[in-house]
């Protein structure tokens, strides 16, 4: 537990630090003494941003999937102990909160269209990249629902229903069936690993835009500066 808290703290501090780094870069690039080639006017690098709600949900939920994945990997190796039971419950509660916030996020996305990929970037992107870009987002959203729902279904099938925060019993998604539960557990695991892989691909692509293409695409997802 202490180890995990430490890892959690470390990850969050690290992400804040990275955020600061990006923020610094953004400022640098829009500054007149920027080392960018003069052929490109600074305006070309200021993209239409995501809404504040979308930005907050993106970073919060993005970090939380890494935290929940780490927790999931750590807790399932633990021997039978109060620690193990406690962490399982925390993991379940976190998953339900994630699911709830993802519903809100998707509703927000439908009512507040996210900015389109800047034309300058879309034009130079090969077709296969554009396809993967769209597919990654679609499949990630699919998994945002699938992973927690499979976890919930597993809890139900295994006969350990979810009681949110220890007080609110949630309905069972499946009837108790220990054999079927094993299969659902595998699916929960595999889908979580797939989500991790896609999230890493998403991060790799963002870093590529930032450090190789130097198109400052990430600024759309960073806090607005005035």
């Amino acid at each position: 537990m202490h180890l995990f808290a430490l890892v959690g703290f470390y990850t969050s501090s690290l992400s804040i630090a990275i955020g600061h780094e990006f923020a610094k870069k953004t400022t640098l690039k829009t500054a007149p003494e920027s080392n960018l080639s003069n052929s490109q006017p600074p305006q070309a690098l200021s993209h239409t941003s995501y809404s504040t709600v979308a930005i907050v949900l993106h970073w919060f939920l993005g970090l939380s999937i890494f935290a929940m994945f780490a927790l999931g990997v750590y807790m399932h190796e633990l021997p039978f102990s109060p620690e193990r039971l406690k962490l399982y419950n925390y993991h379940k509660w976190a998953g339900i909160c994630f699911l709830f916030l993802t519903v809100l996020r998707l509703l927000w996305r439908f009512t507040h269209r996210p900015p389109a990929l800047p034309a300058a970037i879309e034009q130079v992107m090969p077709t296969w990249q554009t396809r993967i870009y769209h597919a990654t987002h679609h499949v990630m959203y699919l998994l945002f629902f699938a992973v927690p729902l499979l976890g919930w279904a597993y809890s139900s099938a295994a006969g350990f229903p979810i009681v949110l925060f220890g007080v609110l019993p949630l309905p069972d998604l499946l009837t108790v069936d220990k054999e079927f539960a094993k299969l659902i557990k595998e699916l929960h695991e595999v889908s979580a690993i797939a989500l991790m892989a896609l999230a890493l691909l998403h991060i790799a692509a963002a870093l590529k835009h930032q450090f190789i293409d130097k198109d400052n695409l990430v600024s759309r997802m960073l806090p607005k500066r005035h």
Partner: protein
Amino acid sequence: MKLKLTFLTILAAVASLFSPAVFAQQKLLANQSDVSFTFKQMGVPVDGKFTKFDAQINFDASKLATSKVAFTIDIASATLGDKATDAELPKAPWFNTAKFPQATFASNSIKSLGGGKFEVMGKLSIKGVSQDVTVPVVMTQAGAVTTATGTFAIKRLIFKIGENEWSDTSMVADPVQVKFKIALSGVGKL
């Protein structure tokens, strides 16, 4: 001839000694009976049951003062329906089955509340700890089978069920609901 007569007399005497017992013989119908329990783990209800138990019953609704109920549970038969958890139950912090293989209940007195309802006072012993408990029982009869059902609560920590790190009641709640359905044969009219 005389010897034969004496033998018969003794036989008759012995038979008469046993006949009331034979008459009052009441047996547990194990396959129609259940003993289960429910507790909460961080708010999540967990159900378990004992699959092996026996009862020694001498119950007569018209003679409650001499009626007796004794119950024995084979603790190692406890199951929560989950292999990993079941493997923990016999260990020392929980039931310590090696040292305390049986839980018992023995009645001291039985009170009728009317309408097939009874209150059975007695001593419950689990894991070497005895406590007086009052168990509400509802009895019904269908054909030759008499069924006694009831629910009562115990506190697991009194019986040291879940010691050391497991005594934290925010993890595993202290109250445990015990539920039973005991089917008996040979019980007279209620």
